[in-house]
């Protein structure tokens, strides 16, 4: 076998030069002739009926483009899973900050004054703001029973176990909403005229926007064109929401006779109005035998979906499937529900339901270890999945899997065992500083859940162009994670040419096929494979045409591409996803192969707790994972480090403060993500175990690092303080104080 030319090597970021020089073009950097700025008038209340709209004095309203729900030409609802979320409120208001009216003007300062001068007359209704209240149907705000989706995963006979089990451990765990906090706020530009609608935007999924705009304007496929601009972070936050903003900008442009309209959210608008991670509550009842073998797991997993369905059923599904953790358990029941409340819809955020349920189970394992009087390592090792075992959905683990080894090696990197022993002794002293170590073992399913990839049937391709280079054609977007570089490496490898011979076409629905959304840790493993297959096809075409004699270098390859184009006019190859035959999933019973494969990990953390201020400082963090083959070590490490940082925030500081259904701390000053001074050096280790169906043996990697930090940190806090009570994240100093000093005035 030949040595890889590119795969496994840290090739520099393809668009890196443009980014470090400031030349990269983001949506707000686009300049257009005749541009209008758009703004959104939003509901101040979480629930009510819109009775009227008043336009205040002192504003030249005749200069403004004004759009209401009455102006919508096609489907007034955003086309996604359910068509229940309106682009603009017609009469019913279902969440604070819901869009009611749109304004456009060329002077954005006047526009801002106008926005403030619109008065909405609203008959307020009692809002439903709490997950438990929604489950109890204290108000019914969606459908018959507030239930967006309910799932049941069953394996074995859970109820047969309780009577005879040596230990029953119960616990309830909660996770809060989390803001994606990409540093570039949401924004789009749209032109809607007789020819159709064109959108430029900061977005993850061009074809989601394409679908939504088509149905909003009743247009055909080729009348709608979506172009992704350089995108300053997404993390799920630009998965579904851009459809709404693009629709708003396009409606304004239509009303403005086709003038381009730009809507850029400012930070607060982005934070208070757009999606966040679903808050969750998980109840776990578990049974163990005297040795610590897990006999039964009964899980009640509930998430708050906010006011509309959006992506919630899929989030629930991934959360439920991951809820049992990486454990072998013959008797498992996972009851999962997603409910409606009158908060802005919760949506996609890196991990997509799994960080919530994995927090619960991995925290629960340490609670159980304490109750059983066992070491948390030993308890886990008795129960960790291995090859041949089945997951909660009955999926058989068919690849080699060494979770105990992953666990041991992660703990060794942290020096866990000796630190644990040492702190057990030093923490007994009366000093206010306590130290602790903790860890979590977990997995993340790669690609879409269940039959998702089968339904998507994604297509990606490559094209030789007249500059002699090969362009990757995919709707999968570069949002910082390294798509451009990874695709280029995969294609350059398949073509056996230098990196310079490969470019990635700007995602533009007029040019690229639908390779599916940029989500679910699928871009490398699923789309990368398609791109690789297509590139192999293109190379074969060139070789068989006789224009590319082997061996060849980059220049010879470019000449061959040009020659082929001159002779045949066109050089393109596509590949479409088809489900591997051994992958079987039953969407009704929730049984079978939930994912084609999983990435596996153990994360270990050391914390220092100041019991005077209840601050938890992360002193050391080890992230060790098996992700198939690593295609680009620097990019892969960067993904893990960034995900861990978000996970640390999720666990300790990133609290969304709600006030009557509205985020009250919608400023970067008050929503606390870490600065460089707050974080330790995150230490990343990969164990490679090539995955047969991924390009170059790669699995998905993007979301995995979001899952482990929160439980590892709280387990370390449990060790430091000797209490199992921390069960809710973020574990802010205020929350920790309430645990340690509940009665203190």
């Amino acid at each position: 076998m030949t040595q890889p030319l590119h795969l496994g090597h840290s090739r520099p970021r393809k668009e890196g030069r443009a980014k470090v020089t400031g030349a990269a073009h983001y949506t707000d950097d686009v300049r257009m002739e005749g541009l209008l700025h758009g703004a959104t008038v939003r509901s101040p209340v979480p629930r009510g009926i819109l009775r009227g709209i008043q336009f205040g004095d002192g504003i030249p309203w005749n200069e403004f483009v004004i759009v209401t729900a009455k102006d919508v030409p096609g489907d007034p609802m955003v086309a996604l899973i359910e068509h229940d979320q309106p682009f603009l409120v017609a009469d019913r208001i279902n969440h604070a900050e819901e869009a009611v009216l749109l304004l456009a003007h060329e002077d954005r300062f006047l526009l801002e004054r106008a926005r403030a001068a619109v008065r909405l007359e609203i008959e307020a209704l009692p809002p439903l703001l709490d997950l438990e209240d929604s489950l109890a149907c204290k108000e019914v705000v969606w459908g018959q029973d507030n239930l967006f989706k309910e799932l049941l995963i069953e394996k074995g006979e859970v109820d047969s176990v309780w009577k005879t089990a040596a230990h029953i451990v119960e616990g309830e765990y909660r996770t809060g909403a989390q803001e994606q906090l990409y540093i570039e706020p949401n924004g789009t530009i749209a032109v809607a005229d007789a020819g159709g609608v064109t959108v430029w935007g900061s977005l993850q999924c061009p074809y989601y926007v394409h679908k939504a705009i088509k149905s909003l304007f009743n247009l055909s496929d080729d009348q709608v064109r979506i172009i992704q601009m350089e995108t300053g972070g997404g993390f799920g936050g630009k998965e579904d929401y851009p459809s709404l903003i693009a629709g708003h900008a396009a409606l304004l442009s239509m009303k403005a006779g086709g003038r381009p309209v730009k809507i850029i959210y400012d930070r607060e608008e982005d934070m208070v109005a757009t999606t966040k991670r679903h808050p969750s509550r998980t109840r776990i009842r578990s049974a163990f035998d005297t040795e610590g073998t897990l006999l039964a797991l009964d899980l009640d997993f509930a998430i708050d979906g906010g006011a509309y369905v959006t992506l919630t059923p899929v989030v629930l599904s991934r959360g439920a499937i991951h809820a049992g953790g990486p454990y072998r358990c013959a008797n498992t029941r996972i009851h999962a529900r997603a409910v409606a409340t009158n908060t802005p819809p919760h949506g996609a955020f890196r991990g997509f339901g799994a960080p919530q349920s994995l927090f619960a189970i991995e925290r629960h394992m340490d609670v159980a270890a304490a109750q059983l009087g066992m070491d948390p390592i030993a308890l886990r090792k008795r129960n960790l999945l291995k090859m041949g075992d089945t997951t909660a959905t009955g999926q058989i683990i068919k690849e080699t899997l060494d979770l105990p080894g992953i666990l041991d090696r992660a703990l060794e990197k942290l020096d866990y065992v000796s630190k644990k022993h040492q702190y057990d002794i030093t923490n007994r002293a009366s000093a206010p500083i306590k130290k602790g170590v903790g860890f979590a073992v977990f997995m993340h399913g790669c690609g879409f859940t269940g039959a998702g990839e089968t339904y998507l049937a994604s297509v990606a391709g490559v094209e030789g162009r007249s500059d002699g280079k090969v362009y990757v054609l995919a709707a999968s977007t570069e949002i910082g994670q390294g798509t451009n570089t990874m695709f280029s490496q995969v294609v350059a490898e398949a073509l056996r040419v230098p990196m310079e011979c490969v470019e990635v076409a700007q995602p533009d629905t007029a040019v690229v096929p639908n390779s599916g959304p940029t989500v679910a840790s699928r871009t490398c493993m699923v789309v990368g494979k398609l791109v690789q297959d297509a590139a192999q096809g293109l190379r074969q075409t060139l070789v068989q045409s006789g224009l590319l004699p082997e061996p060849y270098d980059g220049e010879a390859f470019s000449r061959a591409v040009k020659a082929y184009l001159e002779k045949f006019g066109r050089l393109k190859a596509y590949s479409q996803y088809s489900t591997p035959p051994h992958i079987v999933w039953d969407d009704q019973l929730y049984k079978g192969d939930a994912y084609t494969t999983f990435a596996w990990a153990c994360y270990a953390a050391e914390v220092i707790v100041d019991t005077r201020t209840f601050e938890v400082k992360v002193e050391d963090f080890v992230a060790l994972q098996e992700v198939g083959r690593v295609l680009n070590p620097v990019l892969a490490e960067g993904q893990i480090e960034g995900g861990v940082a978000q996970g640390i925030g999720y666990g300790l500081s990133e609290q969304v403060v709600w006030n009557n259904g509205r985020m009250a701390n919608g400023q970067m000053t008050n929503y606390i993500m870490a600065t460089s001074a707050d974080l330790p050096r995150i230490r990343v280790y990969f164990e490679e175990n090539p995955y047969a169906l991924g390009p170059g043996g790669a699995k998905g990697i993007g979301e995995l690092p979001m899952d482990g930090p929160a439980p590892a940190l709280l387990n370390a806090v449990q060790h430091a303080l000797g209490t199992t009570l921390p069960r809710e994240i973020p574990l802010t100093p205020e929350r920790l104080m309430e645990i340690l000093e509940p009665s203190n005035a």
Partner: protein
Amino acid sequence: MKGQAPGCRVHTPASLAGALELLAAEKGVWRPLAGGTDLMVPFAAGKLPFMDFLNLWGLEELRGLEISEDAITLGALSTYSEIRNHSLLQREFPNLVQSAWVTGAIAIQNRGTLGGNLANGSPAADTPPSLLTYGAEVQLQSIAGSRWVPYENFHTGYKQTVMLPEELITRIRIRRPKGNNFHFFRKVGTRKAQAIAKVCVAAYARVEEGRVVEFRLGLGSVAPVPVRARTVELMVEGCVVDTLLIAAARTALMEDIRPIDDIRSTAKYRRTVAANVLGQLLEEMVEHFDRMA
């Protein structure tokens, strides 16, 4: 981004005298603007009720630092960076230097000014507790003349000060510590940098012959204004160091602070942590003087 009032005016005076004349001539019209780090945020968000700004940034009269035998006098436009990097301040006024270090981050510290920080009147600002420990005085000047106000009397209520509309802060004077002294500063913020204090505690103590002869305790984010904890100070002053009653001092502190719940923290947390940090500081103080003895 949000709106900026197109009708707003910025006047840049050529001199301090010019600035004071304008303030006197058009009373209450002009809002002094120093480095902009506080004002520009609500301004850009369209949340400022006033439209006319008096740009002080270029006034050299408000810069610089004077050193006398007893005191240091800082120009109102002294930036956090200037304070942070000044070797004499580092030596003699560690609380002030530390509070400059923890205000925002470098880019903020290059623009934010001491005078602006005081005029803005936020109870969560980081320099006030330190200034309170150093017996700071604030010079207010108008065309009619100038007056020195003890900083502890400067704030009269939430974001309210003793300043008259025609006055500017021109200088801040702090007394140089003498003798056998101890300094303490701790900001408990929402994070390590770019943070707003949830509780901020600063203290200065001087000991003569084993007895605390001077003790000043300043706190931020625990009341509508930065406060001196008088009850605690009275308790500690005059005590023999080794007989300090730390538990009693912690209890007494509750007389001096009136924290609230807000989006950053809770009243209970602020009370608990203020007391805990006071305990920490008194312990460290006792240790410090014991070591010196």
